[in-house]
């Protein structure tokens, strides 16, 4: 990480040696960071409910250290600063010292903890080494949510302007920009992409399907990670193929006012988390939709699933991950998958946000086992699976690529290699990007793809080309 450290200063500012940022920041904060951090923390405590939780954690945190051996970052670095409990205790120390009566009294009589510029440097560094995978929370006997503490720390940092530029710029475009999406894809480009995907599907399947856009009163309003429209078209085509084959083509729509499921607020800001959710809900309301259908994206699914009920009302709109929808279609016999198409060995990577922190573990496995003959699990797997190393928004921060590869994703790469799989299914835009970079970095012979990319190969559609025909055509095109 040291090689990527940099001291970025605005023009004319006086360089302060202790202000080292391991990632790009738009306007690096150089003065009064301690005072500003405490002011922001106090304001968060005043208007939020963190106080009760922090009180509880302060009283019960036994520092047993079990979380250390669960953390994929600490297991690689061995640096005590990467122990989840160590990180959490910095925030608890600040809370105790500056926001509790006991801490204030103690500070009068002892030379206890004090927030300094150096501690701020530690915070801004180590909380962005955490991938917020929450594997540590699973191993905490007391159930302390270290991932939540990571978000809290990042939230307070963001309120004083310390936030990776990559995340901030994306959120700004999503909330305040013209396109309302993180990749700044304008509506006209979306429409063009959808037309292109329609043509691709027509060529591939031999059926005519035009993507439904801004259709009102549909059962499902679809959101994926907007980057999928440009980078993962096969996942989207797989999604479309399932909807078409299931006979639900006239039951879904894509909105043009907001078509991005990404919510970086989940990684660093309660403020943005809520407003992005409201924006998403606003689009469903505009279209008079009934359900929110989220594509293959871990954090988009979790943020919508967990926070639409909180910020928009408990029964406002049910949130469904696309894999749940597909499994339901299989169970109801609405779609069929040819189990002679995929002959390669396939493994499955559990995105942390939908597996460990969510509700999707068995569903994709049930789908895969229904048509993949050689399916192999990673070790460990399911809720115990390791993070790809790019979680918590780290995958979007290009300047920490070396950290993500050599430290964050090292265990995942080894896990992947040990399966001997030729295909790794990763139903998450962030995980896919990180895993693709990992297999290149570690020279692993494996292809990373979404679940619906694979489904697209094997799905049987009445009146369309058979999966076998499509496979032969694809083989010819490769030649």
């Amino acid at each position: 990480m040291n090689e990527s450290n940099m001291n970025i200063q605005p023009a004319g500012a006086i360089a302060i040696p202790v202000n080292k940022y391991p990632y790009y920041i738009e306007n690096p904060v150089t003065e009064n960071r301690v005072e500003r951090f405490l002011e922001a923390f106090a304001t968060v405590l005043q208007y939020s409910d963190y106080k009760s939780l922090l009180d509880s954690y302060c009283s019960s945190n036994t520092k047993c250290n079990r979380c250390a051996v669960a953390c994929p970052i600490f297991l690689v670095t061995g640096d005590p600063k990467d122990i989840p409990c160590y990180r959490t205790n910095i925030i608890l120390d600040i809370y105790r010292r500056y926001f509790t009566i006991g801490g204030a009294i103690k500070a009068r009589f002892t030379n206890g903890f004090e927030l300094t510029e150096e501690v701020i440097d530690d915070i801004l560094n180590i909380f962005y080494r955490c991938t917020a995978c929450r594997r540590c929370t699973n191993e905490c006997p007391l159930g302390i949510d270290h991932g939540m503490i990571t978000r809290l720390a990042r939230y307070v940092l963001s309120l004083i302007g310390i936030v990776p530029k990559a995340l901030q710029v994306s959120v700004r475009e999503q909330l305040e920009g013209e396109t309302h999406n993180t990749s700044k894809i304008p509506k006209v480009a979306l429409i063009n992409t959808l037309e292109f995907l329609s043509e691709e599907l027509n060529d591939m399947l031999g059926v005519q399907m035009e993507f439904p856009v801004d259709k009102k009163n549909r059962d499902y309003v679809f959101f994926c990670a907007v980057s999928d429209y440009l980078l993962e078209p096969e996942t989207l085509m797989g999604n479309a193929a399932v909807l078409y084959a299931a006979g639900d083509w006239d039951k879904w729509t894509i909105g043009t006012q907001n078509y991005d499921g990404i919510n970086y607020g989940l990684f660093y800001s309660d403020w943005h988390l809520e407003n992005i959710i409201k924006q998403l809900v606003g689009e469903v309301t505009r279209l008079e939709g009934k359900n929110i259908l989220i594509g293959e994206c871990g954090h988009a699914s979790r943020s919508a699933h967990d926070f639409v009920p909180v910020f928009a009302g408990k029964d406002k709109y049910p949130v469904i991950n696309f894999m749940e929808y597909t499994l339901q279609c299989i169970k109801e016999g609405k779609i069929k998958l040819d189990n002679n198409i995929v002959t390669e060995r396939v493994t499955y990577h559990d995105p942390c946000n939908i597996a460990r922190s969510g509700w999707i573990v068995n569903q994709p496995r049930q789908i895969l086992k229904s048509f993949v003959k050689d399916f192999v699990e990673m070790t460990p797997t399911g809720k115990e699976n390791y993070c790809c190393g790019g979680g918590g928004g780290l995958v979007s921060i290009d300047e920490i690529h070396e950290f993500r590869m050599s430290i964050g994703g090292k265990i995942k790469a080894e896990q992947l290699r040990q399966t001997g799989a030729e295909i790794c299914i990763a139903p998450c835009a962030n995980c896919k990007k990180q895993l693709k970079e990992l297999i290149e970095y570690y020279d692993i012979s494996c292809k990373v793809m979404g679940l619906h990319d694979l489904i697209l190969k094997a799905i049987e559609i009445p009146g369309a080309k058979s999966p076998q025909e499509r496979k032969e055509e694809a083989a010819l095109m490769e030649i």
Partner: protein
Amino acid sequence: MEQWIEFAKGPLFAFTFLIMVLGLIKLVIIQIYTISAGKGRNIRNTNWKKIVIDTLSWVIPVRHLIPGTRIFSIVSFLCHIGIILVPLFLADHIALWEGFFKLDLPQIGYALADFLTLFTIACLFILLGFRIFSSRLRAMSKKMDYLLLINILIPFIAGYLASHPGINPLSWNTVMLIHLLSAELLFVLIPFTKLAHIVLFIFDRISGIHWQLRPGAGDRVAEALYGKEAKV
């Protein structure tokens, strides 16, 4: 000295025990308030089954013996057995519970109590050793983490010496007074230190599952810091 012991067994015991009970009740009330409907959340939808299963699975953490912490976890678990059983069910303590609270608890035999006490002392020394010699634990530990372990050790050692005059280098009165005062210091410390996990270990898990963000809080924080026109 005997008057001191009587004082420690009588009013001081009652006072310190009361502090512990009231302190823990306060923590429990705060926890219940936090997770209650009064804070805008519906506790009826809580997945109690998951919470109970999770909590029980940690009470006997057989499923959680992961490489790297196995010895620590086993020793820690075994240590808790003695820490809970001996103070509650030792025959001499039963008399105390009966005298103060009219509680008629079953008692464990002296031989078992001796075994559990020595076992607990050994476990506590091992845990102390971990905290001193493991770089991971040392990095996170503060003075209080060591002092609390020592504070738990003292009443066990002093109690054992008091009941075994043959190996006691001090007078019975001295070790008994040390036993009483160190145990009473623990009573006082329990609600104000990490020892509060004796009740909070249930609530942290409930809070973790049940805790939610407060709607509108983000906007209010941004407005308070940067005004109504706060920008990303």
